[in-house]
């Protein structure tokens, strides 16, 4: 009896693992860089809201006492670093004019009044620093970003299995590095590694078109007994996330326009009151999945340094899930037949 229980437990555990989609890996051109691992859904890239990995499909969270906690934590670290590096690589194609004039021998100083060429070089050097932080593996990170005179490079650096936090940008040469150390680190990277980065960036979706799924999430809100369902307000859809934003959706026909009405529209997620009562006790949020084609349209501007992206729908069907792992499908809405209202 005990035996059977154990086997079912193992099976259940594995099912949770299988439910999650395989990630798409981008191998680096050299072992000095990290590989990029991006989330997918049904075989295509996943944009917008990402799987946080810690939510189990039954609605509970993986706690720090669970065995799988560190595994999930490392997976998240890798994915987080990958997404950041991926975007940094994609941005490069829109800064070609800057990399062309980038000074690879000396730092370009920032001053009050700069010539266009110097401004470009300065901006490009900032981008190279970001790329080096994002892409270097542990060994190379120590080489470029650790100052052995000030810090303990062997132990105090990245823990095994963890990746650099996108927000932490270490300066060239490490903490307290002299101007000689700094310049050496920069020029070494710029000459040895940067050409590889440039080449790699060009191999990624060079036509600026990315097929995939856009995921957003929204609160269920209050059940509407008259209409028999929940009204999902498009203005409350989560608008951030990986690569694509909700407001980047470009409507091409009248039903898509209804969905993207500038005043916001609410679409009805039908559910019988009996189902809704138990459902709402368990879940407060739902995840909406759109089959999309994403487009890279350049950079917002110099200072914002953000990718401009838009996307269009490949299918009128919105899949609805109750978990961020997209394993528990709870419904579908077809936008050509949906019930919608605008303010």
């Amino acid at each position, binding site marked *: 009896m005990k035996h059977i229980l154990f086997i079912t437990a193992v099976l259940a555990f594995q099912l949770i693992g299988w439910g999650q989609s395989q990630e798409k890996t981008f191998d680096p051109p050299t072992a000095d860089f990290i590989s990029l691992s991006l989330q997918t859904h049904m075989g295509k890239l996943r944009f917008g809201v990402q799987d946080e990995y810690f939510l189990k499909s039954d609605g509970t969270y993986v706690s720090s006492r669970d065995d799988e906690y560190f595994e999930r934590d490392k997976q998240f670290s890798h994915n987080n670093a990958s997404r950041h590096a991926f975007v940094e690589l994609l941005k490069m194609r829109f800064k070609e004019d800057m990399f062309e004039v980038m000074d690879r021998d000396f730092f370009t100083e920032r001053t009050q009044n700069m010539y266009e060429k110097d401004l470009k070089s300065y901006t490009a050097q900032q981008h190279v620093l970001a790329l080096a932080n994002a892409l270097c593996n542990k060994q190379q990170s120590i080489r470029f970003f650790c100052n052995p005179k000030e810090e303990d490079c062997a132990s105090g650096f990245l823990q095994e299995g963890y990746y650099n936090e996108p927000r932490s940008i270490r300066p060239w040469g490490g903490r307290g590095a002299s101007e000689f150390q700094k310049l050496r680190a920069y020029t070494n990277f710029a000459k040895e590694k940067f050409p590889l980065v440039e080449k790699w960036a060009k191999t990624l979706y060079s036509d600026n078109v990315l097929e995939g799924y856009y995921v957003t999430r929204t609160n269920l809100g209050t059940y509407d007994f008259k209409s028999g369902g929940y009204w999902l307000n498009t203005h409350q859809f989560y608008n951030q996330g990986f690569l694509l934003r909700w407001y*980047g959706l*470009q*409507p091409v026909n009248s039903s898509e326009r209804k969905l*993207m*009405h*500038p*005043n916001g529209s609410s679409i009805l997620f039908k559910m019988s009151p009996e189902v809704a009562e138990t459902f709402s006790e368990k879940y407060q949020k739902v995840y909406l999945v759109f089959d999309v084609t994403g487009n890279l349209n350049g950079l917002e501007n110099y200072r914002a340094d953000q990718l401009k992206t*838009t996307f269009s729908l490949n299918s009128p069907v919105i899949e609805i899930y109750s978990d961020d792992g997209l394993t528990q499908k709870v419904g579908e809405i077809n936008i050509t037949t949906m019930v919608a209202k605008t303010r």
Partner: protein
Amino acid sequence: MKMKLIKTNAVLIVTMLGTLMPVSAQGQFLKKLKKSVEDKVVKTASDKTDKLLNGNGAAASVPDAKPGRVSDNKTSQSEKVDKKAPFAVNDQNILTFKAPSKDFRDVVIQAHKGLPRYGDLYFLRGTTTPTMNKAYEALLELKFLENTFKALDRSKLTKHQNISGDLEKKNSVFAQNHLLILARETLSDEKLQEYFCDSEAKSPCNFYNSAGERSRVSYWGGTHNNEFAQNRSYTKFIKNHYGTLQTWSNSFYEDGSQIAYFVARGTVAEKYDFGNKGFWIVNIFSIGGDFILHKSNFMAYSENEKTLKNYSKKVFLPVEPTAAKAFNLIERSPVFVVFKVKVTPNVTSPTHIAWEFEMEDTIMEFYKDSPLSQKMGESDIRTIKFKD
């Protein structure tokens, strides 16, 4: 006064039962009688036109036997001969909505290429054809605020006091005010005397200002009249004309929306750009008139539309250097930008309609002048260039 030409009831009915108007907009009973009166109408109409041309001047046009919309064709031009309007261009730039009966006057608004012109208008007193924008807007509101008008008290004027809290009374007050505007704007001069001039007044009231525009219309029953006379005037109007006005209003925006031209006024932002060969235009939407449409109700769907609406960026108009020289523009010269739009009413409260509009065509036309006669060029919103 001048329109006392037609007095017999027969003619009155005849004019009411428009013959050439789209069937959908007319009542059922009109259709039945249509055939029988057709011949009479043609005769009456031409008679009236003759009389008009023989000396009835600026006051108002004669109600014809054709309610509904007549675009800038020969008919409206021949009727619109106006001593004060020397430019033929004006006549082509109006739309005339024929009065449903001789108790009303035609509603005229400005037009561009045969469709209503909204936004920034071209108005020059004494030069451009007088328009009845208020009447037009009031008729549209009569149609789309129908739920509010359900609360209309037809038997008496609702008092302004004691209406707090009761939406029905509030709506009735609003509806009655609205009808007052409609009556002032749409009634024929003859009927205006009847409803807005004290019957005991020694001479007929004058409802026109020195420029020949109707403006001095007081309250029901005329100035200084008591509440009994006011109520009599109001209820009589309701009894005789409310139904006609409702039917008339339904002939506007026939399928619930309207294709129109939205004219925005921008300015030349800087000197001619030789590098890109064109002008940078700025401040579109922030200056200029807002007849029916206002920037805030521009439904921006694409990224460029959103940029145009939400950021005060300069937009680019390609113009060849030789052509640009001929236009003779300097910084801050006005430029008129024309959008073909689809207008849809959104009733946001019992008393307010937001006229939402989206681009019907991706082409934006740029003109040098307000009458829209000198076209400078066009840009496509899908590919238009912006800069800060």
